[in-house]
């Protein structure tokens, strides 16, 4: 971590106090990133980015305000601090607000890979091209819409007026491809993705191959008949649902009456087969860090175990309101936003059966490989949902004909309780949060087609 960043954060904190804040906190950040997008065997775009900025949270008694800026000079930092202090005047008093009482850092190693710096742009381009070639190589693939390699290296420094000062650096590399199979109105798409701390952790053959296979598996898909049946959610789809459930375990959502899990701590809300934890310290986790967005140490928090909901996720404010301790769940997207309660890495404990096994147990039903409009299709308060999906039929314990233009409907609690088996092959899914999930078998859902 660069000393300049820590220094900028310290100056910003001091400036907020000088401007009349009673407590203050500053998050300074610096990053570089690289992205290669290839199409049809050529570089479509190549980018190089640099970001830096500081965000200041200022408290004036029980009121708080936030401001951010890109100017890390002495004058720039003072301007941001004063703006945060002024913003605080507009807010109503919040008796639970304030900096965390239990700041600190967790021991988290290997967030930054030294390997990344050794990769030339040419090698990164070659990796993206290899992903595209792998997708194209599969017979039946008509087009690879894009193949993308990205990486980022970032450092943050967090300082507050109670004496907390710490920082860390992290690297991330990922690649994905989107392949098409079939033509015209029968065109099907498939996504392949891989991630790690550096490009050496990415397998272009696997990423491109996955995109191709997911698209090819859907060619010739038809609308199925409506019925109720067992449903196997593949890892991507399972991760989407688990991410959605994780968001509803935020104490913020609970305290504001926006979670169907409100008041259910300690209750049986899921089948015992399903165990889920939030872990901000997992060395592989894209969201791992030694401390959260306001300086509480990260940790592993078991959420669902033996079918019971063990706890919600708390930041300092929601913890104070509930008379609990922070779970290190104050997340930040960047210096441009103040901390808010969220998940770090959600991890579903793998089970005993591989995908074939889950399909065999399902017997007759549906294997879902894609859901559309999850966020629009789920009522976050009641948990009822009806979302568009595609995938394959399951007949006599085996995958059968592809299907599309269908919806699957249930409600989240019924779904959690209906989980019959958890797959053995868990994988990281980076979209819509950071989730590591295996496929899941749900005993029954309403499938609506023709």
């Amino acid at each position, binding site marked *: 971590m660069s000393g300049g960043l820590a220094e900028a954060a310290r100056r910003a904190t001091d400036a907020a106090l000088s401007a009349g804040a009673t407590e203050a906190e500053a998050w300074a950040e610096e990053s570089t990133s690289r992205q290669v997008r290839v*199409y049809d065997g050529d*570089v*479509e*775009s*190549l*980018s*190089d*980015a*640099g*970001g*830096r900025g500081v*965000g200041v949270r200022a408290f004036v008694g029980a009121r708080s*305000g*936030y*401001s*951010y*800026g*890109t*100017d890390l000079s002495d004058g720039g930092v003072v*301007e*941001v601090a004063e*703006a945060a202090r002024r*913003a*605080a*005047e*507009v*807010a*109503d008093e*919040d008796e639970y607000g304030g900096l965390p009482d239990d700041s600190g850092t967790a021991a988290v190693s290997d967030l930054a890979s030294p390997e990344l710096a050794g990769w030339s742009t040419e090698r990164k381009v070659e990796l993206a091209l290899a992903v595209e070639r792998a997708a194209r190589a599969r017979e039946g693939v008509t*087009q690879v*819409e894009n193949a993308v390699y990205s990486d980022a290296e970032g450092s943050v420094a967090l300082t507050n007026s109670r004496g907390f000062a710490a920082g860390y650096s992290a690297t991330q590399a990922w690649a994905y491809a989107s392949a*098409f199979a079939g033509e015209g*109105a*029968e*065109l*099907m*798409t498939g996504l392949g993705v891989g991630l790690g701390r550096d490009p050496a952790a990415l397998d272009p053959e696997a990423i491109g191959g996955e995109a191709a296979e997911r698209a090819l598996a859907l060619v010739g898909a038809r609308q199925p008949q*409506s019925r109720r049946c067992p449903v196997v959610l593949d890892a991507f789809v399972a991760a989407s649902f688990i991410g959605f459930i994780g968001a509803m375990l935020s104490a913020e959502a609970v*305290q*504001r*009456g926006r979670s169907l899990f409100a008041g259910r701590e300690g209750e049986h809300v899921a089948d015992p087969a399903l165990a889920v934890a939030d872990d901000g310290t997992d060395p592989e986790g894209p969201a791992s860090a030694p401390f959260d967005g306001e300086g509480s140490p990260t940790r592993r928090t078991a959420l669902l175990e033996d079918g019971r909901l063990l706890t919600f996720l708390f930041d300092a404010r929601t913890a104070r309101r509930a008379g609990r301790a922070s779970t290190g769940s104050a997340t930040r997207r960047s210096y*441009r936003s*103040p901390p808010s309660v969220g998940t770090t890495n959600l991890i579903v404990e793998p089970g005993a059966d591989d995908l074939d096994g889950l399909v065999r147990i399902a017997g007759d039903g549906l294997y879902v490989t894609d859901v*559309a*409009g999850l966020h*629009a*299709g789920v009522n976050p*308060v*009641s948990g*009822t949902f*009806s*979302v*568009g999906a595609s995938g394959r039929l399951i007949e006599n314990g085996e995958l059968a004909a592809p299907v*599309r*233009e*269908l*919806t699957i409907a249930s409600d989240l609690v019924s779904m959690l309780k209906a989980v019959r088996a958890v797959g053995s092959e868990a994988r990281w899914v980076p979209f819509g949060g950071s989730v590591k999930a295996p496929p899941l078998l749900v005993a029954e859902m*309403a499938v*609506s087609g*023709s």
Partner: protein
Amino acid sequence: MTLVDPALAARVLERALVRGGELAELYAEARQGFSLSLDDHRVERPQGGRERGACVRVVQGESTYYGYIDGLEEEDLLRVADSVAQGLRGEERRPASLAAPTPANGHPVLSRPEAIEAVRKADLLRSCEERARAAGAEVSQARLGYVESRRSVEVYNSDGRAASDDRTRVRLSAQVVARRNGRVETGTDTRGGHAGWELLETDPEEVAERAARRALTQLDAVDAPTGRLPVVVGNGFGGVLLHEAVGHGLEADAIQKRASVYAGKLGERLAPGFVTAYDDGSRPGDWGSDGIDDEGTPTRRTTVIEEGRLSSYLYDLLRARRDGVESTGNGRRESFRHVPVPRMTNTFFAPGEATADELIAGIERGLYAVSFGGGQVEPATGDFVFGVSEGYLIEGGRVSAPVRGATLVGNGLEALGAIDGIAGDLEIASGYCGKAGQSVAAGVGQPHVRIRELTVGGTAS
């Protein structure tokens, strides 16, 4: 005063072109914003920010090389230009000379939002909350949001283009929750525009009241029907369907990658002759309007469907050059941290002759979809799924009970072809559109539109 002096811009473009490139561009931006919310009876999260930054882009053949940076210092800009040039392998090119940027025809801002005291914005949210709660005893929560932004942008390119724009937007949003015996329903509404504080001077509390009425109405909702039904789509936010299921498929990047079901269909009849649709980034004061797009092309009205026939795609400079046409002024980006891609501005069906009541009167049993919670479309096929956030049964030619949990499942081409009525009540609503990791202000809208038949995925068994 310019953000980047034309002489410095010229040096940046020269440096970006030292190893060749057909087009070099410098996009500079200063952004400032303020937002505030009311939740849990409390005015909270007052926050502001100021950012300055730039994006340098060089286009060579089918390839784009770009870089962006927080900051507008000379050394920042030159460093980005050098780094971008590193990706190329050709002969040095000289950019055309640059004049001072020409300010775009702006949209009128009568009352600068940043000049309004923050406490008045807080009071606005309080009075909105009061109005929402007054709508009914079953209103249990009201969440209000206010956001203002100002973006000063400058675009210089190696063809000698030098343009600037000054964009101000304000938006008020309301989300209201109503409860009855364990049932919980949510209603939303927004008012936003490319405009100043004046947009919120006339009865802004109406936004909160409408959200509250929607939530209260939904308390009486019955399970949604399932099956193939005639559907009347509401005006304003109902335009999300056009935006998602048709508009994205008309963006030239999807067309050129043959990733759109609309590729190769220019001139073909896709809808009945009474259907016309526009993308128009020049409509005064509308949410998705700007003076120029983010490549310096003046915004304009593009007829995308003319009397039922597909008449134009939506272009940025890059894709226009490939097709040998002019940019339609749709090269948009979220900020200096992004390269422009073809994006809609305000997209809507032209008003027709009918009234909404007439459209509904012709339906024995169907669905009235007033607004959508969002949705998703597969551009390659046009297949879409939308969650209906406010919907009603149509029975015997009349709107009857509200329904919950309905989704519309279908295909954009089929839905266009199945339009059998358009009302005259055009309204444009303010939304955010996400594409390629970028979120931009997009106006969605339409008059009431009737579709002969769509698949409704309901909750009723």
